């Protein structure tokens, strides 16, 4: 009876339009699913058994990517409750921690997975260096990785301002002070003043939209954190994963 029902459902046009093949328990279906699923096709159909060894990759790259997914998920949740307005932002975070269902968990998870991602990306880079995986033909993908690491740090840093508490304000103040000292384009850097840069037209002004970290800085960091940088890192990840497939996995032969 149940078998007949299953067969009936599997034969419907609806089911057949979604799933192109049966459950992946045969060689044929295990291959087909890797071709037909957009997410799974990042993987090859078969890999060397030795590449599965935990102590080679320690899952660091994959976990970095997983942290990004987790951050996207929790970040979207947080966006429903957050307004990047200096008069509201702090209270929004307070509300999240006390009044919003699951709010505190989502914020905590967002925070700790962000810290974990920073650490994991560094650790992944260390592993890739130590196993010589950046050597020909993977030089370019190492470069993409370095950019991904930089964007990860920037993502974490722009998110740091958003709670609009003392920690946030002054950490970003310290950071943007450094921008002021950029050679040529900062008002306090070498050759900055000579080139006509002042506190109200230099690179720091561009970054925070003012001479002090205020409303414009909050809005800019919000847009960078929630839109611009995630788009950039996603594109970078797409290329990074693609190149792993194209250049081949460096694992033990």
């Amino acid at each position, binding site marked *: 009876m149940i078998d007949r029902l299953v067969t009936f459902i599997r034969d419907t046009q609806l089911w057949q339009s979604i799933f192109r093949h049966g459950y992946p328990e045969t060689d044929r279906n*295990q291959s087909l699913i890797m071709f037909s699923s957009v997410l799974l096709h990042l993987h090859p159909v078969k890999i060397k058994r030795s590449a599965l060894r935990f102590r080679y990759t320690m899952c660091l790259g994959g976990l970095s990517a997983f942290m990004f997914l987790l951050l996207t998920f929790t970040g979207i949740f947080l966006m429903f409750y957050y307004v990047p307005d200096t008069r509201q932002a702090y209270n929004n975070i307070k509300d999240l921690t006390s009044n919003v269902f699951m709010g505190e968990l989502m914020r905590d998870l967002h925070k700790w997975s962000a810290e974990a991602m920073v650490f994991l990306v560094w650790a992944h880079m260390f592993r890739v260096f130590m196993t010589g995986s950046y050597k020909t033909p993977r030089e370019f993908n190492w470069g993409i990785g370095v950019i991904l690491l930089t964007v990860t*740090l920037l993502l974490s840093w722009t998110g740091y301002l958003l709670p609009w*508490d003392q*920690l946030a304000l002054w950490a970003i103040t310290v950071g943007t002070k450094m921008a002021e000292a*950029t050679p040529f384009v900062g008002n306090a850097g070498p050759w900055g003043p000579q080139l006509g840069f002042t506190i109200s037209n230099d690179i720091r002004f561009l970054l925070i939209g003012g001479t002090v970290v205020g409303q414009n800085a909050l809005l800019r960091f919000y847009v960078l954190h929630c839109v611009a940088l995630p788009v950039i890192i996603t594109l970078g990840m797409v290329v990074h994963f693609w190149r792993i497939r194209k250049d081949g996995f460096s694992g033990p032969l």
Partner: protein
Amino acid sequence: MAERSTTENIYPRNQKKSYALMELVKGQGFQTRKQPEDTVFVWPHLLYIELIAALVSLAILLWVCTFKHAPLEDMASSDTTPNPMKAPWYFLGLQELLVFFDPWLAGMVLPVFIIVGMLAIPYLDINPKGVGYWAWKERPFAIWTFMFGFLQWWVFIIIGVYFRGLDWQWYMPWDDWTQHKPSSGATLNDMNVILHGWGVGETAANLATYAMTIGYFALFLILPVLLWRKFSQQLGVVRYLLVWSLFALLMLSPIKVFLRLAFNIKYFMVTPWFKL
């Protein structure tokens, strides 16, 4: 060559067939020292590992969330400046460098060199060995250089996080972190001022610091070719210059830290536009 009889045993000749096993030959082929392709399906073998790794990491994060909440201090206010002002932990290494370098170096130029240096690594490392496994002995120079930079990054972060308190003074974990510490009292001098103090003329002292700085980099560019001629030839001119100037930059921060702590030297070179 194996015995004809062995071949016959494995695949006896049959007159009715147009094919036969000719001969078994001992020897080394292209597959020497390689295992036969031992592959498995990604579904389920790799996907299981990915799923388990994801679930375990999620479980750990959720567990952390049960006892440690994301920090939230008082509302931002430009009226009260915290002391010390700390950047997020992953940038505290750079903030710690501010003790030793001017902000344009610590905050901008050195980070750019770190990124450029890391991007350049695959193009500078010409050693083909050590791909695909944890290798130490086959590429000592690459590994030690990278470790040196990597450790610097983390050591400065650890100092910034755990040893810097009020007024960015050095605090031990068992010190009272609410009490201000007297500044060390030592006056910091610039290299040219020190030389001037020794009786060198002002211009000559300035020129001497320029010469010392140029000499520092020249040393890194000249010495290796004299010491390791073969390695240098393999590198070629462009790689050679890049490798050793980046290496000189990598050594710069520990040297500057040493000069400061041992001799109270603030800058080793002062120009009208910037100080090093």
